[in-house]
């Protein structure tokens, strides 16, 4: 090489180096919170979308009439007070005055009426409540009255549960809305942050709502006073698990949600980040097909399958560190009022021999049992891998089929395609919200015994009596086996040590009001 080109090359490399150094100057604004989330949220319209991601972002923008405190109690949010009359058949809700929407308009009963109407018609969980309501009316500028067909115990829980729940929109927006998610221009709520923009794959940007009307009570769970300390919050989709962790360490994100369990032990002692465990457990469920196929009404065969599985092994392999899971036969996690041991002695026996005997009694002769799981979520696949291994060892002829999530969701809608499938269920504050309690959710558990108990469960108002009925339902879950629970799984997130005020939340969605950077 000639000297001239050598010189050129040297000059070039020096200048490249200079440019690189220039770029490397660290840049992070103190007023912006950067939250790395696992995926793109489909929409922020939580009335119709039940994605956890949607809920997590939307709770900063929208509010409901009620919300949950850290002990899973439904408490007022937009509501000032309520009055229950006529043995629970008439409920009068009075709103707080002086609450403004992000568009400057004051919240009135008009808005609530329109929002609840839309939710009752098209909302994911609206019908669960409104099937029991005869009439809803506006009885004042700040007053809504609900007439129930008969007393309906879970009404407040349903109004408080924001996942697929009744977020309150301004009247103009709610009235126009139908089954399709509300477009971005309609993201107007009463929350401490307002929606600014969404740049697909880049971020969803929220900025502080300066006229936010906070409650006076101290912050507790999702309830009470909400202090917006950041000028701006960015929710950044970062699908790769490793990148979400590395991004915190590199200073590119302040908070990363949903880190795989296996990393817990090493991250917990990592000085570069803080680990926060979500207290509300989610549950792994194997659903059994009650409508078609070999498992239909064959409760003994289902029991045989249940008997064969040792959940310890499943949880350990799929989740990892013991801090993140609890072997628990109670459908609802410990610490909730719904914890119950009824029927749970059938849980996690891991007895292959007994299972074989039961299967034989049930008339099982090695027929193919189709088990579906997704590889889109590692914990689904890993759990299923262990479960199917154990079932095969106990002599079941399992046809293990794996799909990506989208395919599984549409396959499971067709009862002829499967016998069992695996999914996770988020924490719910009231058992009526469990998907297996619904007769239209794939699995289609609708035996007469279940119908009867479910009806009784809904119409009983007394908390003690309700608990007693729930015990019976759980007992039935272990005899008819519409689902098989793996255990409680506690999700954890990580955040930069400079964040202060992050609370272990009661449910599973982190919230960023009350959180601030260390001074």
């Amino acid at each position, binding site marked *: *090489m*000639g000297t001239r080109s050598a010189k050129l*090359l040297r000059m*070039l490399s020096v200048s490249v180096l200079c440019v*690189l150094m*220039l*770029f*490397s*100057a*660290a840049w992070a604004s103190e007023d912006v919170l950067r939250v790395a989330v696992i*995926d*793109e949220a*489909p*929409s922020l319209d939580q009335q*119709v*979308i*039940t*994605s956890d991601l*949607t809920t997590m972002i939307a709770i900063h923008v929208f509010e409901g009439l009620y919300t949950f405190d850290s002990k899973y109690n439904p408490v007022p949010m937009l509501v000032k007070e309520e009055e229950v009359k006529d043995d629970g058949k008439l409920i009068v809700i009075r709103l707080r005055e002086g609450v403004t929407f992000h568009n400057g308009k004051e919240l009135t009963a008009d808005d609530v009426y329109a929002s609840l109407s839309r939710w009752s018609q*098209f909302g*994911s*969980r609206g*019908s669960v409540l409104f099937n029991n309501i005869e009439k809803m009316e506006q009885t004042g500028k700040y007053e809504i009255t609900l007439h129930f067909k008969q007393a309906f115990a879970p009404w407040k829980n349903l109004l408080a549960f924001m996942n*697929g729940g009744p977020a309150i929109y301004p009247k103009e927006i709610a009235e126009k809305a139908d*089954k*399709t*998610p509300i*477009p*971005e221009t309609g993201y107007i709520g009463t929350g401490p942050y307002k929606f600014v923009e969404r*740049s*697909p*794959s*880049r971020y969803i940007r929220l900025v502080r709502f300066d006229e936010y009307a906070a409650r006076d009570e101290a912050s507790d769970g999702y309830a009470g006073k909400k202090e917006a300390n950041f000028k701006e919050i960015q929710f*950044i*989709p*970062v*699908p*790769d698990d*490793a*990148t979400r962790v*590395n*991004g915190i*360490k*590199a*200073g*590119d994100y302040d908070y990363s949600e949903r880190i795989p369990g296996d990393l817990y032990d090493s991250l917990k002692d990592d000085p570069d980040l803080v680990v926060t465990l979500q207290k509300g457990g989610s549950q792994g469920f194997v659903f059994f097909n009650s409508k078609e196929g070999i498992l239909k009404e064959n409760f003994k065969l289902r029991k045989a399958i249940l008997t064969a599985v040792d959940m310890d092994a499943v949880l350990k392999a799929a989740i990892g560190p013991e801090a993140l899971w609890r072997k628990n036969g109670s459908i609802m996690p410990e610490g909730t009022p719904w914890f119950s041991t009824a029927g749970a002695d059938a849980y996690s026996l891991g007895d292959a021999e007994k299972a074989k005997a039961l299967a034989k009694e049930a008339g099982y002769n090695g027929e193919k049992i189709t088990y579906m799981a997704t590889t*889109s979520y590692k914990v689904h696949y890993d759990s299923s891998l262990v479960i199917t291994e154990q079932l095969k060892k106990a002599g079941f002829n399992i046809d293990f089929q794996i*799909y*990506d*999530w*989208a*395919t599984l*969701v*549409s*396959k499971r*809608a067709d009862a002829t395609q499967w016998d069992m499938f695996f*999914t996770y269920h988020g924490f719910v504050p009231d058992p009526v919200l469990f*998907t297996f309690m619904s007769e*239209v*959710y794939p699995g289609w558990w609708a035996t007469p015994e279940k119908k009867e108990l479910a009806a009784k469960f809904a119409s009983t108002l007394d908390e003690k009596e309700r608990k007693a009925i729930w015990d019976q339902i759980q007992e039935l879950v272990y005899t008819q086996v519409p689902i098989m629970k793996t255990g409680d799984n506690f999700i954890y997130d990580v955040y930069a040590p400079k964040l202060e005020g992050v609370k272990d939340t009661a449910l599973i969605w982190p919230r960023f009001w009350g959180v601030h950077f260390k001074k």
Partner: protein
Amino acid sequence: MFSYLVRRIASMIPSLLLTSIIVFSFIHLIPGDPARVMLGDQATPEQVEYLRESMGLNRPLYIQYFKWLGGILRGDFGSSIFFHQPVLSVIADRAETSVFIALISIVLIILIGIPIGILSAIRYNSFLDQFFSGVSMFFASIPTFWLGLNLMLLFSVILKIFPSSGFPSILKSGNWENLRYLILPCITLAIPNSALIIRLTRSSMLDVSNADYVKTARAKGLSEMRVNIRHIFRNALVAVTSALGFTFIGLVSKTVVTETVFSLPGIGRLIVESILRRDYPTIQGIILIVAFIYMVINLIVDLSYALLDPRIRYS
């Protein structure tokens, strides 16, 4: 030349049509339902049915195809099912990242590939030649995501020189400092892909270095340097140019992985995510546009032959 150009452009039309048919039928063969994916796990069957209806997914496939095609002719690629935005604007949002990555990577590839290729050819069979071919081949043998992760670990997590992931818009903020977000991804793309250019430059230079006209040039007393640059390199450029279309399409594939690793808001990741979400209009739109760009690049490549190699004339 002009009539050649017209013919080439005209021949792109049936190709694009064929592409559109293949894309459309492939995409709709994928099992899964965008409405279900969107609404979440707890959606009721009625909700799903409503949404399907309003998205036009219940109509016969051929009608959906012609509707789509008709739209494209009017410049309307339809609306993204997931984002509720026109497909073109969804793609335009991501195009910035991908265009920056593609340009920087191709420049890097050329900056790395051609000089090393020339050097290897000049020092044919020397230690240097063997060393470069060994090293470039080594990098070409590393899985892209693995290389990217290691670079991220070293430069972002340990040394904290570059950001680990993401890419805030430059065009919107006017902040050119944001280019630093793209340095690691571009290196991840450029290093393995340089191997091809190194090889092409080297061997095409070797091929012509014994050609008659080069010998003549030497005999005329031109310095070795000038012979190398004027004659040999110019010829090598033809070979390298011919690989550009191929390199481009290869880059698109590799950006899918790179953008996932570095969480970049680009076209590559949009493709994967759209497939997972069954966002049919978006996938179709992207593939068609990528195919179109590829065809245009190939056309430019063919035309540039004529400029680089005086012996080729199109008529």
